[in-house]
Each structure stands twice: as C-alpha cells, then as structure tokens.
C-alpha cells in the first residue's frame, strides 16, 4: 500500500483518470445492453453517432452542455467556499422567472439590451433564491443541504402556481407564460452562421453557450486571480484559518452562495431565452442536480466542468438517439447509463487511482534506477 505515490502528475490525474473511469462506466453499461440481447458496440456507435454524427446532433449536444456548464459552475463555486449547493434546480427556476419578468418589464426593444436585462434578471433572482438558505447557514447554522433542497420544492410550487395563475398565457390551458416580447431572445447558432453565409442545420444551440463559456472563464478568474476568490477558498478549506486571516466566513458564505445561485439562475437563458421564448413549468428538468455530477467530474475546475458538461451533453443527446434507434434500450436505460457515468466518474473518482499510481510508480521507479 505504501508503494503508491501520493501524487500523480497532473496529466494523469486530471485527464487519464476521468477517461479510465468513463471507460469503466461504459463497460458496465455495455454489460447491461448486452444482457438485454443487444450488441453493446453497436449501441455505443449509435450513441456517438447520435451525439456527433450530423450537424443537428452536434447542436443539441452543445445545447444540453450549456445547461450543465451553468449548473456545474454553480455547484463548484459553492463547493470552493465549502458548501454543497443542492439548490441549483430551484435557483434555475427562479432565474427563469427573473428573466421572464425582466423581459416582460422591458417590453419590445432592441435585442442586445433585452439580453443584458435578461441576464441581470436571471442572475439576480437566482442569487436572491440562494440568499435565504445562505443567510440561514451563515447566521443561524441551518444546514445548507437541507434548506436548498427544501427551496427546490418551494421554487417548483411557486412556478407552478404562477404559471396557472398570474403569469399564465391569457386564455391558455398549459402551465406556461405568454411568448416573450419581440426582440427578447438569444440568436441561435444556425442563425448566426447563416448571417456569415454558412449553412448549418437548425438546432436550439444558441448564444448562451458563449455566455456559459464566459461564465466559466469568469469563475476561473475569480478563483485563481482575485482576493475574494482566495479568501473564499481559504474559508472553504479551513474556516479556522480564514478567521485567523481576518476573513469573515459568514460573509464569504453568503456572497459565494449568491454567486452560485446566480450561475444556476442563468441556466434559464439557454432554455427560455434561447429556445422556448416563454416561461414553461419545470423547464429545469433536473439539470440542476446533474450539475452536481458535472462539478465533481470536472474536479471543480472550470475547464473540467466545461468538458464534463459536454460529456453529459453527449449522454443526453446521444442517449436520446440511442433510445429512439434501439427500442430495447429505453429512455430509462439511458438514465441508468447516465447514472453509471455519474457513479464511476463523479462519485468514485479514486476507483482506479491505486493501480494506476502503482503502475506509474513502477515506471517512474524504473526511470530513476
């Protein structure tokens, strides 16, 4: 046991290990598919084909990834401050509500302005929804895991009420709002490309993917380049050392969780402002929870989160295609496969660490000898 080096080179640690874990997850998934009497390699081919095989598929893959980038970043910012934000789902719903109110408040206007107002509305409402559990945690010691979970239910119920009540489309029967005013919407990629004379199949992939990448960059900058990011990481790793350094842990907790909530809230940009152009009930579809797995798979590093988010985009889009093409593999089974990936790559990141480290130790030892 002691022959295993404590630390592996970064390349092995952050690239090889997740890759091996995904392979294990795919292997187990393959066994399941094989058990159903289907060819696992054919299924894998369908999955990859479904995610990357044609332009529309690629669009959908990155469209889903956009959601996961936002929610993954949200989880990771809270995690760096030492907290588990399970409330991404509720914060995303409130973000969607904030965005909707903002664009209706603004009315018909120039698209660019409405985007800014929508981003502000989404972030503000998401942050506001995170503020209450954050405050309770920081000032009253109520456990944030419990309170954020509860706030998911409240958010869901609130949205359901509003969408069959005050915000429902006049005369409508569905739990959804009126369409957004003209000009309130994010351009979709195929439109952008068409503007430059490139033709690309229609897909819901829209400019919020770029906003998500910017958010990842901003989170990276926050964590590694700013004093607040530094203080936040100190507080997250060692509250006692933070107090020693004059950092107010409650204050950092509240601010970090509000940032987290704002990021989760911005998920609505993709779904609502990029595709639906109205507020619909339960548009979050569990993406807030998947963000937890994305953050862990991405080792809570913004770049890792973007990559993990794309992987989950592949699983969502390719999985849907697979379920469509191979009827024995049902949608539920796709969820099983996603679960396996989360299990192996997110929850058990050290599963293969020991053998890999031992192998590395042997080679490194041989190199030194």
């Amino acid at each position, binding site marked *: 046991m*002691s022959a295993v080096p404590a630390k592996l080179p970064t390349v092995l640690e952050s690239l090889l290990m997740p890759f091996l874990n995904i392979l294990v997850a795919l292997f187990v998934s393959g066994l399941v598919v094989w058990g159903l009497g289907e060819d696992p390699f054919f299924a894998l081919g369908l999955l990859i084909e479904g995610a990357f095989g044609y332009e529309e598929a690629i669009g959908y893959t990155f469209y889903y990834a956009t959601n996961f980038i936002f929610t993954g970043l949200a989880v990771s910012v809270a995690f760096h401050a030492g907290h588990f934000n399970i409330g991404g789902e509720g914060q995303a719903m409130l973000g969607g509500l904030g965005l909707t109110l903002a664009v209706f408040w603004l009315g018909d206007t120039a698209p660019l302005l409405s985007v800014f107002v929508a981003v502000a509305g989404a972030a503000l409402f998401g942050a506001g929804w995170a503020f209450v559990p954050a405050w309770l945690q920081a000032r009253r010691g109520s456990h944030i895991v419990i309170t954020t979970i509860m706030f998911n239910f409240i958010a869901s119920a609130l949205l359901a009420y509003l969408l069959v009540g005050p915000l429902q489309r006049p005369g409508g029967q569905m739990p959804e709002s009126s369409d957004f005013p003209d000009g309130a919407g994010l351009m979709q990629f195929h439109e952008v490309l068409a503007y430059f004379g490139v033709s690309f199949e229609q897909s819901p992939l829209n400019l919020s993917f770029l906003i998500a990448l910017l958010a990842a960059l901003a989170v990276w900058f926050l964590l590694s380049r700013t004093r607040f990011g530094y203080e936040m990481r100190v507080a997250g790793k060692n509250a006692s*050392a933070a107090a*020693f350094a004059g950092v107010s842990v409650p204050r950092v907790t509240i601010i970090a969780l509000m940032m987290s909530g704002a990021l989760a809230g911005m998920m609505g940009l993709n779904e609502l402002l990029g595709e639906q152009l109205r507020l619909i009930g339960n548009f979050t579809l569990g993406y807030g929870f998947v963000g937890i797995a994305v953050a862990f798979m991405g080792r809570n590093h913004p770049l890792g989160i973007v990559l993990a988010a794309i992987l989950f985009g592949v699983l969502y889009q390719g999985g849907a295609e697979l379920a469509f093409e191979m009827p024995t593999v049902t949608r539920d089974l796709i969820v099983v496969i996603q679960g396996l990936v989360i299990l192996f790559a997110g929850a058990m990141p050290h599963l293969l660490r020991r053998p890999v480290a031992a192998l590395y130790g042997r080679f490194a030892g041989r190199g030194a000898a």
Partner: protein
Amino acid sequence: MSLAPAIETKDLCKRFGNVQANDNISLVVEQGTVHGIVGENGAGKSTLLKMLFGFYQPNSGDLIVNGEKLSLDSPSEAMAAGIAMVHQHFMLVEPFTVLENIILGAEGQGLLRHAAADAKAKLKGLEQQFGFDLPLDAPVSQLSVGERQRVEILKALFRGADVLILDEPTAVLTPQECDQLFDLVRLLKSRGKTILFVTHKLQEIMAVTDTVTVIRAGKVIVRTATAETTPDALAEAMVGAKISRAVERRDGSKGMPRMKLESVCAQSDHGHEALKNVSLEIYDGEVLGVAGVAGNGQTELLEVLTGLRQVTNGTVSLSGNVTNSPNTFTGPIELRDSGLAHVAEDRLKTGVVETMTATENAILGYQRSADFCRNGLLRLKAIAAAAARYFESQDVRPRNPELPVAAFSGGNQQKLVIARELARDPQTLIVGQPTRGVDIGAVTKIHDQITELRNAGKALLVVSADLDELMTISDRIAVMCCGVLEGVVAIEDADERSIGLMMAGSSGELATP
C-alpha cells in the same frame, strides 16, 4: 537473558519514492525493559514505529518478535502479536465512556451488555495488577489528558499487549503527570511488559529507559545502555553536532508596556468562562512565557490578543489603544496593520491551509495588504516573490513553494509561518506553541529568533506546553490554570517544580481541561 528479545529488527529498510526513510535499522529490545528511541522529527522514528505496528511493511530486513520472524501486514496483526501503540494524539471517542472506549473493536460478541460485563471483570484484574484507578463509566470527555493517556494504556493491556509503544507520551502532560506516567512505566516493566518509549526529550530518556537507540536520517547512530550515556552525548548523536545557541540573551532594561490586559474575561466556544479576570502586561524587549496545561485558557488568551475572540469584560490594549473590550473589537487584519503578528498555536488547524500551496499560504492573513493585492486582484508575481524570499530567509525545504503545505514536514511548515509573520517586522509577536512538531535543529533556530527579536526591543508573548522551552526563552513566566492567571514569575525565581504546582492550580490538585 535467556528469553528471546521482545522485538528485534535486522537491517530494516523502508523507502518512499526517492527518500530512504529507514536505512538498515537494527535494534534489540529485551523482554521487560524500557527502550528509548530518540531522534529529530523526520529522522525516521515514525516510519520505524509504523513498521513495528504493522502500518507500513519494510522493503527489506527482518522483524523478529519473541524470537519469531513475522511479517506484520496490518495493525491488527501487530496487535495479535502483542504489540500495541499509544498514539501521541489519543484515539478515543470522547462522548463514549472509558469502558466503551476500551472494549471498542474488541467486544468479542454481538451484545454489548455481555461484552461490557465480561470486560469489567477482566479490567478489575488489570486495574489491581497495574494500579489503575479510572472511572470506567465516565465519558472520556470528562477526563484529564493524563487520565486519557492511562485509558489508552489500559486499552492496550486489555487487548493483551506485551509490548507497548508510547509515541511522544509526555508532549501533553504537566510535570506532575509526567512523573505519574514514569511511575506507571516502571510498574509495567516490573510486571514484565516491554516498553518502547519514543521522545525527543532527553531528560525523559535518562529518567525512565534502560537502553536507548538514537536515529538520525534513517540510520541508527547510537545503541547503548542509558546508564552509560549522557544527555549531551545523546543530543549530539541526534543532531550530528554539538548544539550551540547562537544568540545570547542580552541584559537590558525592558521597555514600555506594549500590550495590556485589564480584568479580561472571555468565554470559550462552549460558552463557559475560559478567562477569569486576567490582567497582564507585555513589555517591549521581553518574552513573556505563558505556561499551563493545555485547555486552561491559553487558547482563548491568544485569541483575545489577536482579534479572534471578543472579551466579555475588561480591555485589551495595544500601544495604548483599546483593541478589544465588550464594546470595541479590532479584527486580525487591523491588528496586523498596527504591527502585531500572530503565530497560531495549532498550525494545521489555524495557521495554514494544508491543501493549498506554500505560495498561497505565504499571504494568509496578509492577503489584503497592498503588496499582494490591488483593486481586489491578487498580485501573483509579488506573491511568488514573497514566498521565494520566505523560503530563502528561513531555509524552508524542499525549496518548492508550489507544493501543498501538507507536503512539508512540521518544522518546515513552522519556518514558513514564522517567515510570513516576521516579514513585516512586527513590534508585537504573539506566538502559540513555537516549536510543536518541529525538529530539534529547527527548535534552536526558532528560539534564537525569538531571543533576537527580544533583544531588538520587540514585545513577545509565547504560549507553550513545553515548560523547558519557556524556561529557556522567557524573561517572565505567567502560569494559567482554569482560566485564572495563577501568577507571573520572573525567570530568575522560576523553577519547574513550583511552576508545575501553579499549573495544577493553587489547590494543588491536578487541573483538568
């Protein structure tokens, strides 16, 4: 002796990567003796112990227990071979009773009620044999440190240990508790138990051991009967050269009172009165040592001085300005700006963030100073330069500030902390446990630095659990017991025995934290 040695190692080697932690360690511990193992931190003591205890496996060499060659693959196999370890940090479940702690993991059967009854009968015998008098039904959290240690020892005996490894057993004890421990060690020996006594305090080796092994840089340097050696010879073997103190204490009149506590009361985290009417002055040009058994208010004293805890009564002032009273409270950042530096007593819990790099730790507490931060952005180059300077000035090794702090030894972590705190040339320095977990070479250097600062007219307060240390560096020693300042003794009038009695409270009973 006709009996085979209790423990014998032959050419035991252990490598970690490129580090040869143990290099051909051979030692012989006869049955029924007390064998001392001394060495600096990082000399390889812990590695050796962990191999004896089955926690590590040697790369080569033999381990022979009672004449039988064994390979111990886990602590439970070591336990089965009759070897038990009393760790420096006790492995007790505080809310559990003494009895529950002792039978934990050795219940022997599914129903706790029967296990407890059986254990009680067995413990009665052990208690009589070894003279223990422990409250079996009291929760461990109510016991003093000395009593907890006896619980650990009783736990080992309960499991049938014949060889007891005591790892730095006196680190947390008062002088009186140490004496009790030594008595117990002698009693255990007279009842045929074998004891490995690991320490870096040479007086203890002289007081209690029969034979001693000195380890330096992973090798056995000296193996001798204790009666045939001297503390000086052992010290030299430990560090490789005669230790000389480079800095002499200069006589000089002490200056103005720099920090002042007047009738300070403060509560602990648990809400009980941790400081009771403490009044104290720290003068420029002196080292005020604070002695006491851990948990008697020293932690809270450090906290009220350094802006980490508000007082409930009285005032703390620095350079004539009130920094802490029930109405005013100055936080650590402002205090640092007023020339106060703080070396935290619990390095890993408070003084550093283990998982962050040494560079990141180099600005902990100073992250808002203009040197390291502008407009909310970190000045990474300036920070890296500062870290490099700190590594250079204190000779921190390995010389790689990008490693996480956890990768450094205790001594090197402390060097980094000291470099950080001295970087702004503070007038006042509040130090908790300056040399806890620091190897002896570094200890001398740290003591020298403290003396240098004192000679330069700085005001220092040093809290330490090591009375010898305080006797070495202090001008005056303040003694705390149960949150009360029992008295302040000038170093000329101080002797270990009277201070030990004060540490135990004026009533003369042993203080419990």
